[in-house]
C-alpha cells in the first residue's frame, strides 16, 4: 500500500489555493524571490508551486514526486531521507549533516536549501505524512477547488488515470507521467501537453538507485581483492629478490 497524488493538468485553473494551503499548514514564512532560487517557484519557504509560464496555457503543479525508489534516499550518507510505508519520502533534520548530495541526486531538482540561514536544512514537500497518519488527505489536496489534484492509493489512481484517458482519448496524451519514470513516482500527472520539461533530461525508466548498485556491490570484493593482490605481489617480489641474492628490504 502506497499513497499517491494524481494531478490532472487539464483541470488545473492555477488558483494557487494548494500553495496557500501548504504554506498555512507548515506556517512557512512569506517567500520573496531570492538569487539562489530556480525559476520554478519552489524554495525552502515554498514546497509546492504552479508553473505558470510554461507550457503555454497550462498550469502544472510541481512538488516532491515521492519516488518509489528515491535517488535522494539512496544518496544520503546518513539516511536522513527515508521512504515511509505510506509512500512519503520524508526528511529527518536531526540526522542531516548538510552535504546536499540529495539535491544533486534528485532528477527533478526538488530539494531546496536554507541558504540564508546559519543553521540550514533541506526543505521539501512531506506529502503531509502527519495528516495521512491521522487519516486525512494532504493540505494541498483538500484545498483544490477543481479536484485537479487528488489523493489515494497509487494503484487506484493509476487505474483512474488510465480510465480517464480511455474515456477522453482526445483530451489527454496517452501517458501517465510518473508511472514508470525513474522507477515510478508517487505523484502522477495526466496532461494534454508534453511534460518532459519536469525532469532535467527526458525521463528515463530506470530507478536511479540501480545506477550505483553495481559499483557499491563491488566495494567489498575490490577491498579484499586489492589486499590479496598486494600481498601476492609482495610475496613474489620478495622471493625474486631473495633468489637474486641480497638487495632485500631492511626495516627502516
Amino acid at each position, binding site marked *: 500500500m502506497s499513497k499517491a497524488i494524481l494531478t490532472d493538468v487539464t483541470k488545473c485553473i492555477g488558483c494557487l489555493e494548494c500553495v496557500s494551503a501548504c504554506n498555512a499548514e507548515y506556517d512557512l514564512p512569506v517567500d*520573496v524571490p531570492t538569487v539562489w532560487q530556480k525559476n520554478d517557484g519552489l524554495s525552502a519557504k515554498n514546497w509546492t508551486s504552479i508553473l505558470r509560464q510554461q507550457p503555454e496555457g497550462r498550469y502544472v503543479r510541481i512538488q516532491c514526486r515521492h519516488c518509489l525508489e528515491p535517488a535522494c534516499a539512496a544518496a544520503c550518507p546518513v539516511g536522513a531521507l527515508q521512504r515511509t510505508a505510506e509512500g512519503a519520502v520524508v526528511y529527518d533534520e536531526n540526522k542531516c549533516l548538510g552535504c546536499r548530495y540529495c539535491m544533486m541526486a534528485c532528477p527533478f531538482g526538488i530539494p531546496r536549501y536554507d541558504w540564508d540561514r546559519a543553521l540550514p536544512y533541506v526543505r521539501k514537500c512531506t506529502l503531509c505524512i502527519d495528516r495521512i497518519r491521522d487519516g486525512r488527505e494532504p493540505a494541498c489536496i483538500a484545498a483544490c477547488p477543481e479536484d485537479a489534484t487528488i489523493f489515494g492509493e497509487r494503484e487506484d489512481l493509476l487505474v483512474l488515470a488510465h480510465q480517464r484517458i480511455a474515456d477522453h482519448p482526445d483530451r489527454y496524451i496517452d501517458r501517465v507521467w510518473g508511472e514508470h519514470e525513474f522507477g515510478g513516482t508517487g505523484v502522477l500527472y495526466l496532461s494534454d501537453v508534453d511534460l518532459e520539461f519536469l525532469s532535467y533530461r527526458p525521463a528515463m525508466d530506470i530507478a536511479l538507485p540501480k545506477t*550505483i548498485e553495481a559499483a557499491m556491490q563491488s566495494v567489498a570484493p575490490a577491498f579484499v581483492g586489492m589486499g590479496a593482490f*598486494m600481498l601476492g605481489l609482495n610475496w613474489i617480489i620478495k622471493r625474486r629478490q631473495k633468489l637474486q641474492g641480497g638487495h632485500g628490504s631492511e626495516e627502516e
Partner: protein
Amino acid sequence: MNRVHVTKTILWMLVGLSTAVALTRYMFGLGATTNLTDATPWGLWIGFDVMAGVALASGGFVITAIVYIMRQERFRPIVRPAVLTAFLGYVAVILSLLVDLGLPWNIWHMMIYWNPHSPLFEIGWCVMLYTSVLLLEFSPVPLESTSRWARVRSVLMKLRFPLVLLGIMLSTLHQSSLGSLVLIMPFKLHPLWYSALLPILFFISAVALGLVMVSFEGLATSWLYRRKPETDLVARLCKAAAWVLGLYLVVRLGTISAAGQWALILDGSWESFLFVFELLVMAVIPMILFAIGRVRRAVSGQWIGCSLVVLGMVLNRINTGGLTMIGATGDFYFPSWMEFAVTAGILSFMALVFLSAVEHFHIWSEQPHEREADPHASPEFSRSGEVWLGSPPVAARTRYSFAFVMALAVGVALMPGERIRSSGVSQVSAQAARGGDTLFIDGNRDGFGVAFDHPRHVSANGDKASCVLCHHMNAPLDKQSGCTTCHRRMYQMADAFQHDWHASPKGASIACVICHEEGVYRTAGSALPCDACHRDLVPPGVTIEVKSYRAPSYVDAMHDLCVSCHRRKTLELTDRPDHAQCRTCHETPLPDYLQPDMADLLRRPGYNHVVLPAVVKGSN
C-alpha cells in the same frame, strides 16, 4: 627575506583572509559567502577541494605501494614527504568539508547513522579511516626526536606493513568511489563524462596523479629550499606515469567507443572542446613528454609534464563533479571570491604545516637549515621600523602574525554587507504603473498584476476627499509623485530619505545640528521629521502616517494599502464578503482600451486566476 620567508608570509595572509570568510560563513550561512544555488548545490569546495583534493593526495598510497609492497628501495627517500603530503591533503579535505557542510558539527553522524548504499557514506568512512592510517604511518617520524615514546614508536614500526596494506586497500575504495558519486546523476552529467566505468577511471587516474604529485612536490620544495632535486627518481616516476596514463587513455576512449559517443566529441559544443582539451592536458601531452627519455630526465621537462597532469586532473575532477552538468541544469555557476579565498586558505595552512614539519623533523635525507627554527641565531634588526625584532624565531612569528592579522582585518572589511543583509533577495526595481483611467499595476512586469479602476475608486470614496487615502506623500517640490519614487524596490525596503545626500556639501549641505538636536545622541529617531523643512511633502488630511525614512517594498506597500482598506470595506459592505480576497483585485476583467503591449500582457492565460499567497498571509 628569502624565498621561504616571502612564501610563508603570503601563505599566512591567505590563511588570515580565509579565516575572515569562514567566520562570516558560520555566522550568516552559505548563501552570504558562496554563489551556490538550489540548481547548483555543489560548488568549488566539493568540485575542487574534495573531488580534486582526494585525488591530489593519492601520492601517499602510490609511493608506499612502490616501496613497501613492490620493495623498490631506491624510492625510500621520498616516502616520508609523500606520506606527510597525503596526510595533510586529507586533513585539508576534511577542513573543506567542515566549511562546506551545512551542519558540520554533525559530520560524525556517519558513524552512527548508516546508509551503506550511499557512495558518500563509503567515501566518508574511508576518508576517516585512511586519515587515521596516514597519521599512524607518519607518526614514527616526529617520535624519533624524543626517546620517551620509544615503545610506542617500535610498535608502530612493527605495524607499518599492515598499515601500508590497509592504506592501499582503503585508497582503492574511496578513490574509485568518488567516481561512483556521480553515477547516480545520469540525467545531469554530460554523456562524455558519464560512464559506468567511472570508478575504474577515477582509480587509474588517481594512481597516475599520485606518481606525478610526488614528483611535483619534490620539484616545488627543492626550488623553495634551493635543494638539489631528485631528478633521477622523478624521471623514473614520470616513466611509470606515462604507462598509467596510457592505460587510462585506452580505458577512457574504450568507454567512449563502447557507448558510440565519438560523434559527441566532434559536435562542436563547448563540452566537446572541453573534453578534448581536458584529455590533451591530463593524459595525451604528458604521456608523450614522459615517453621521451631526454624530456623526462630534464628538470624543465619534468616541471612542464607534471604541471600539465596536475592541472588536467583537477580540471577532470571539476568537470565530472559539476561543471559539465551546467548543460542540463542551465544554471551558470562561478565561485565567489570568498569561496576561492577559503580554498586557498586551507591549502596555505596545510603548506605551512608541511614546511614547518620539514624544518623540524627528518623528512628529507638532508634537513634544510632555517634560521627561524634556530633559537641560538643572532637577533634581527628591522631597518624600516628601526627596532630589534628579537631572535629569528621571534622575528618570524612577529612577521607572520602581522600578515595573518592584517589579512583577517582586510577580509572582514571586504565582506559584502549588502549580500549579508539582503540574505539573497533578488534586487528588482519596481516599475511605475502604466495606463490612463485604468492603471495596470505590475511592479516587476511579469504580467501578473492588477488592473486598477481609478475613477471608480475615486467616486466610491468621496471624490476629492479620496486622494489622500492613497497619495500620502510627495517628493519635495512635486505635487503628484508616483509610488515608485520612494517604494523603489520590488521586494526590499528602500531608503526614501538619502541621509548622505542631505549632509554632503555637494548635495543639500545641511549642518548636522539643523536636524539633530545638540547634546542628544544622533539617531533617526531623535532627528527632526521631514515636514519640519519640507512643508509640502505631506498633503493635508493624510491618514497614512510615515513612521520611518525607509520605504517598505513595492509589493508590501501596494498590498498593505489596498488590502487594509478592502478589509475595512468588507465590514461596511455586507453584500461583498469576498471584497478582501486576492481574486477581487487580481481577477479584474481585461479593459479593452489599454495600450497594445499591456493588452498583450493581460491576455496571457495566467492573469485571471492568480491569487498571490503573500496577500493572504501578509495582510493580517
